[in-house]
């Protein structure tokens, strides 16, 4: 018997038991749809993390001040300013593995425009900051190195601040007040969205770091900066840059070997790579759980095929009497199982794709259907059909024709 004839026989017998065939397929449909949807959710989460990594800026190293011991009191990282403008300049100039270095000072203050006010983060930065963060302006311009030098009262607004204070109005050229000091808005930054920690990165006002130091948040620590952002020249040099930064700062801060440094260095790309890896494990886990339902679907097929073989014992006997070989019977039942599995699998793929779309539409989770997952799910459902169909089919093919013909 050839494949075509066998498929026709299989199709007819499945149609003869419509309800049963549909219920059996439902097992496969749910299994495959679950795999597709779970993998899509996992891939979507992964994709989101990758986008967040890109939003932070690539090849990024953060240098945090702090951890000094004064009078027996140890402060944690970021507690006490220990980094200087000079440190930032030295890192930028002296370390070959470093492309850009930008000092920052972070404070919180209300920003006022007309009768609107908005309490936000005031980042004192240099123009390098925008390059390191790969942050474009959508209107106006950045401030310049000359403006930093002159401690000019200019500001670049994040999207959230711009929307909160100005609404539909164009903020460029307008005056806002930060701690009663008037600043001219020169630019609007593009939208960055959430940081990997879930903070709104657009809720920020960038001003020249010198202005922040001298006119807004003058402190006891003159010339001190907060975090220094460093961008390595490329992905491969991040490790080198990190090490050289540590060496240079230990030297500049006169920290001897064995002494605890008064700063710390964090490699952000590395941290995010860890986050990415954990998402990947999560999506693998989701896929694995979904695969269990595929397995259950397969067992359903096996169950129904065994019933079918028993029910059709007489038919098998008749077919054998008119000359069907063992492999003809085997092929017939195997194809029947395969048709159940693959039809269920195909419908499952459609349901899975539709389901993923609904999840991202209504639950707001990002999902991503990969062609690979679809192909694997399809291939897997075929494999399930063959695997779980084989035992019943073999049982049918091994029947004794005399017994089978006598079966009532």
């Amino acid at each position, binding site marked *: *018997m*050839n494949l075509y*004839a066998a498929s026709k026989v299989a199709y*007819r*017998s499945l149609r*003869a038991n419509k309800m049963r065939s549909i219920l059996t397929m439902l097992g496969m449909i749910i299994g495959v749809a679950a795999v597709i949807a779970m993998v899509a959710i996992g891939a979507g989460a992964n994709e989101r993390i990758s986008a967040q990594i890109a939003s932070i800026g690539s090849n990024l190293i953060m240098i945090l001040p702090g951890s000094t011991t004064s009078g027996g009191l140890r402060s944690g990282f970021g507690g006490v300013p220990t980094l200087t403008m000079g440190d930032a300049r030295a890192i930028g100039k002296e370390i070959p593995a470093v492309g850009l270095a930008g000092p920052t000072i972070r404070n919180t203050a209300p920003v006022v425009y007309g009768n609107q006010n908005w309490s936000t983060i005031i980042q004192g930065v240099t123009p390098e900051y925008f390059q390191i963060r790969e942050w474009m302006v959508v209107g106006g311009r950045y401030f310049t190195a000359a403006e930093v030098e002159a401690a000019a009262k200019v500001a670049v607004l994040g999207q959230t601040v711009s929307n909160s204070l100005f609404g539909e109005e164009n903020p460029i050229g307008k005056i806002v007040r930060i701690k009663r000091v008037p600043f001219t808005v020169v630019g609007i930054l593009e939208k960055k969205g959430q940081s990997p920690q879930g903070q709104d990165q657009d809720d920020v006002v960038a001003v020249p770091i010198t202005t922040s130091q001298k006119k807004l948040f003058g402190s006891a620590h003159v010339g001190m900066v907060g975090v220094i952002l460093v961008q390595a020249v490329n992905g491969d040099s991040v490790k080198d840059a990190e090490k050289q930064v540590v060496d240079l700062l230990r030297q500049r801060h006169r920290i001897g070997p064995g002494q605890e440094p008064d700063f710390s260095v964090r490699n952000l790309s590395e941290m995010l790579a860890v986050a990415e890896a954990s998402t990947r494990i999560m999506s693998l886990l989701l896929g694995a759980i979904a695969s269990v339902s595929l397995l259950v679907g397969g067992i359903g097929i096996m169950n129904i095929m065994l019933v079918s073989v028993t029910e059709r014992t*007489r*038919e098998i*006997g*008749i*077919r*054998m*009497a*008119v*000359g*069907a*070989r*063992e*492999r*003809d019977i085997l092929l017939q039942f195997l194809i029947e199982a395969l048709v159940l599995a693959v039809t269920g699998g195909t419908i499952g793929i459609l349901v899975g794709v539709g389901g993923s779309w609904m999840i991202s539409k209504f639950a707001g989770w990002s999902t991503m259907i990969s062609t690979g997952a679809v192909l694997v799910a399809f291939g897997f459902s075929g494999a399930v059909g063959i695997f779980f169909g084989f035992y019943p089919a073999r049982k049918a093919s091994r029947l004794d*024709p*005399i017994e089978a*013909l006598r079966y009532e």
Partner: protein
Amino acid sequence: MGTPSIEIRNLCKTYHLGEVSVEALRDVTLSIGRGEFLAVMGASGSGKSTLMNILGCLDRPTSGAYRLDGEDVGMLSRDALAGIRRKKIGFVFQGFNLLARMTALENVELPMIYDDTPSATRRERAREALRAVGILDRERHLPSQMSGGQQQRVAIARAIVNTPSLLLADEPTGNLDTATSAEIMKTFQGLADERGITLVLVTHETDIAQYSKRIVRFRDGMIVSDNPVGPR
């Protein structure tokens, strides 16, 4: 008559049912000529069904030789026996044994599906067989839409569609009324006379056996008589 169609010699079949063994056939020797119409009679348990199963290559003897058209088929493999059944043997059963979901035509095509006959040839030959047994007008009917006699005709068509050399009929009229039985038996006679098919008929009705040319009686797994049927 040249080589006989069927030649069995010292055929034995023993079934083991747990600790009891049942000797269904004991040393049976029988020769059936080509185109002969033979009736096998006997009470139930006499061994006639076992003989039919072995003749039909559905079962293998415990010992002894079975030659079909000169070929020793007694000890062939299951698949080889399936091949013999497909090419050389046609079965007609008491319960018709048609596939319920298939039309008359499709039922007759069934044996040809297994040797990959092209579908056009299959259809043509199936129609021919249906015409030969006078039931072509029912080719699109399902078994459930036909009378017993009509179903048995379809079964006969299926049995002869591969032009077998041996036709085995196991109580073919057991489920039919007298008039229909007579028609079916005439059909069998015609096939034996016109086509030269060897026909072995199992029955326990004497008047049905009278349609054959030779009657073999079984008791306790042995042949007790072997007589030609006189002219009616």
